[in-house]
């Protein structure tokens, strides 16, 4: 994958004025309690090494799903889709009865155990992986 880390990583930093997000997730941001690990952090200040441990993900809302203020995130390659779903649900403060789906190619939901690193290899372009997300009442 093309390494253009600098330009893509700086995007969220410019949102710093809102006091939201660009740094590691911490209580003073608008997020609810941070996920247990900092495996998902807004894309910023990532050392652009040869083996980037984190990949850039751009999250896009589908339908009437709330839009995340911070859309660009640096995520560890080993983070699973399920982990990302849990993170977004917390971030958007969804209730347990709501299901959240994540898609690649805007229409295909990878299985929850799929690692984002793999998805990045398969579907990433321009140094990032675009994922769409949609909340729904899928069951019943």
């Amino acid at each position, binding site marked *: 994958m093309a390494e253009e880390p600098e330009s893509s990583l700086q995007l969220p930093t410019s949102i710093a004025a809102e006091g939201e997000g660009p740094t590691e997730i911490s209580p003073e941001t608008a997020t609810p309690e941070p996920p247990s690990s900092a495996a998902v952090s807004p894309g910023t200040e990532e050392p652009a090494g040869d083996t980037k441990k984190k990949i850039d993900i751009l999250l896009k809302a*589908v339908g009437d799903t709330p839009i995340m203020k911070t859309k660009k995130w640096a995520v560890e390659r080993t983070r699973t889709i399920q982990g990302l*779903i849990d993170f977004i649900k917390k971030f958007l403060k969804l209730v347990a009865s709501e299901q959240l789906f994540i898609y*690649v*190619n805007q*229409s295909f939901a990878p299985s929850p155990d799929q690692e984002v690193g793999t998805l990045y290899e398969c579907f990433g372009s321009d140094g990032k992986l675009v994922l769409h997300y949609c909340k729904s009442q*899928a*069951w019943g």
Partner: protein
Amino acid sequence: MEEDEFFGEETFQHYCAEFIKHSQKIGDGWEWRTSKDCSDGYMCKTQFQIKNGTAVSHRGTSAHVQTCLPMEEALEPPLDDFEVMQTTTATEVIKYEYHVLYSCSYQVPVLYFRASFLDGSPLALKDIWEGVHECYKTRLLHGPWDTITQQEHPILGQPFFVLHPCKTNEFMTPVLKNSQKINRNVNYITSWLSMVGPAVGLNLPLSYARAAFQDEGNVDRQGSSIEPKSLEEL
């Protein structure tokens, strides 16, 4: 072909055919079966899963299970296949059958499935719920009777578990509309199955995600314009 304004049986069969084409390419095991009078049909696949859990083989030959090894370790030692089967067959291997049928009343595809141990004894609904992926467990167990039920297979007439389809239109519509915006033809079956399958142990390989668009030349344009007409009928 204005009749494809809704998701009709023909559209269903078309998408299944495209889906199976890709399945054959990658050896994913899906097949099409027709009913006796060939008026309708369904897609099906059988797969075997090893259930994590108590690894002790009660009925297996105890000579091969000297200690209560966890399943993974039981498979690692250089036992020949027969011995491994003895250890795992009795309790841990579960056969899943997944059937994708078309529901006339909801005008959407429906996922039927059943699971049994290799000796033929079926899994109970309780076991099915326990096997649901963590990701979906909370929501599914929130109202279990609304989500996974047991029904008679419309073609085979045998009891199957079913993922209730009444919300299918609701969660498919935003996805389809989104794709239409960028003029993309989406295989409804691929998209839908990728969403509901993992809840019950059915995971689609990632290559399906790309295959959905490679058939752009073949996909009936109207087929992708799936307006939620059936919502009016609910």
